């Protein structure tokens, strides 16, 4: 699926109809914009690890040899249904990529209830900022929906790539910067869209 940064496209992309969508869930709109998987994220599933990594937008620019190098350093993790992968209020130390299953991004709402923000499928990634800077406190939690297989890439692994394979790391970091810029753009657009809708509602 191609992401179009037009107002109509964004509305379709970011605001699919949800049963409990209300005015109190404005944070969820922002969050979904942030977690929306970039272009082509929800497509085919790969066989071996390197083939799978080719599908991840972060590693799209890498060649076969570089993908094999990345495949050598990622950590494969298995999570059971309902298990938290990362928790709100804790520092991030790794970037995660969904390999199999579905994970749910949630945020603690009033009364310590988890407010669902987004669902992520392979090969979506989350917590990219932890791969370039540890110690950033998370404002969301991610938990498994059913059995989930994830790939994790720690900051030291990324540092190792930067030190030993600067060309490879440069490609990854450029993609990372691109993804984060796009998400920021989508967030701003979503915010503008929400404001314009609110104004329209006020006028009506």
């Amino acid at each position: 699926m191609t992401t179009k940064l037009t107002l109509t496209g964004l509305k379709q992309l970011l605001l699919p109809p949800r049963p409990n969508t209300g005015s109190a869930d404005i944070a969820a709109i922002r969050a979904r914009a942030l977690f929306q998987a970039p272009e082509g994220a929800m497509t085919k599933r790969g066989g071996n690890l390197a083939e799978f990594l080719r599908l991840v937008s972060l590693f799209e620019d890498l060649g076969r040899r570089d993908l094999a190098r990345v495949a050598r350093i990622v950590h494969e993790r298995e999570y059971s249904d309902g298990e938290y992968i990362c928790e709100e209020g804790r520092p991030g130390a790794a970037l995660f990529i969904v390999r199999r299953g579905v994970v749910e991004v949630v945020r603690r709402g009033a009364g310590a209830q988890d407010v669902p923000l987004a669902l992520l499928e392979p090969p979506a990634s989350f917590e990219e900022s932890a791969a370039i800077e540890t110690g950033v406190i998370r404002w969301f939690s991610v938990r498994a929906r059913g059995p989930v297989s994830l790939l994790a890439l720690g900051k030291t692994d990324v540092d190792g790539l930067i030190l030993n394979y600067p060309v490879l790391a440069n490609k990854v970091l450029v993609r990372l910067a691109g993804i984060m810029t796009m998400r920021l753009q989508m967030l701003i657009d979503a915010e503008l869209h929400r404001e314009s809708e609110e104004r329209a509602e006020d006028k009506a």
Partner: protein
Amino acid sequence: MTAASSTPAGVVMKCLVATAAAAISVYLVWGLRSFIVPAFVGCLLAYICRPLVARLERWIPRSVAVGLLLVLFASVALVGFNSVRAAIPSEAALLELRVRALYALNRHYRALMELDASWSRGNRLYQLIHRDLDPLMDRVSDVLALTPDEHAQFVASRDRSTDAVSARSDRLLDYERANAYATEMRAGRTGRSDAAPKTIGGSASSAPATSVPKNEPTGLGNVLSAWIIAPLIFPFLLWDTGNIKRGVLSAVPNRLFEPTLAVLADVDEALGNYVRGIFLECCALGLTVIVLISIVGVPLRWAIAIGIFTGASNVVPYMGFAAALVSGLTYALLAEDVHSMLPLVTPDTFAVWVVAAVSLAELLKNALYEPIVLGGAVKLHPLVVVIGVLGGATLFGPAGMLLAIPTITIVKGLVASSARHLRAYGLM
């Protein structure tokens, strides 16, 4: 936690298992202690070489890079072994060295203390410290003095082929006579009877001398069999492309995954900073010692040897200065001709200048190299350093002394980082 494990029986069972695991760990560490240090050295070397292999891997396959490093290490070891073998003096040269050393020692001691011909009266300094210093001097003299057999061998080995060589031989024989006289004087002063037989007629030193080589092959064999593990571990760890780390992390429960990643990153950073810092500091100190003592008048060949020895010893805290001082002073006391770049340096003041040069190098290390190069890589209390080094030496010998600080650095980093991250992740 399951309901069963929270019952008193479950807690008792847990405690029993933990105690048994701790006991087995201690038993294994103690039983395999001879392999721990070589294994640790192999791991440390591999850790140091990992970035180099990774750099080489950009152009050549990893296996070739590891092979090249192994060949390099083998070549360095071979060259080092040959250099050491070439530097070991022959039996005759060793006797000559002992004669010169004892003569220089007696001469300088006598000059410093202004001793009279009977070696019993000296200046105020001598009166002040002779009760403590004389026994020490006697012991050193006993070690250096030749036995009658050795004396005969020494005299017989004197070469008189040319005038120059003959003059040198005569000078050495004069030294030996002066040594024998000094030993007699000392024996007469203290009334000792055990010093004289060694020089005049006894062969006290021959018995222990024969017993030592008997045990040597067995001891050397044990050491070699233990140390063979280091070159085995080294390539295997270098070959690894992250499987070990991934294996360790795969055994970690999910909720501890991120804290463990963060702790490993901290320990890696602490150890990397220490290894890089200490390597640069040792190189800087060694080079400074080489330059300064060369200026003072130590020949470049010996200055390089003393510099390398100093740099290598500096891995153990406070040992670099001691090594430079002892080796520099030994050379200064033995040197007969001094060719210094500084006009103020004379053979009589040479030792003082060497001490000054070594002290200046130590000052530079403390004031300049350590803050800049090592920085805050190792913030250890001096008492912890001393206890750690002594403990390492007691448990594992010289290698334990060498590896005490890296071990303390790792443990300190591990404990501090674990506590910090476990708190941050709400696990403690």
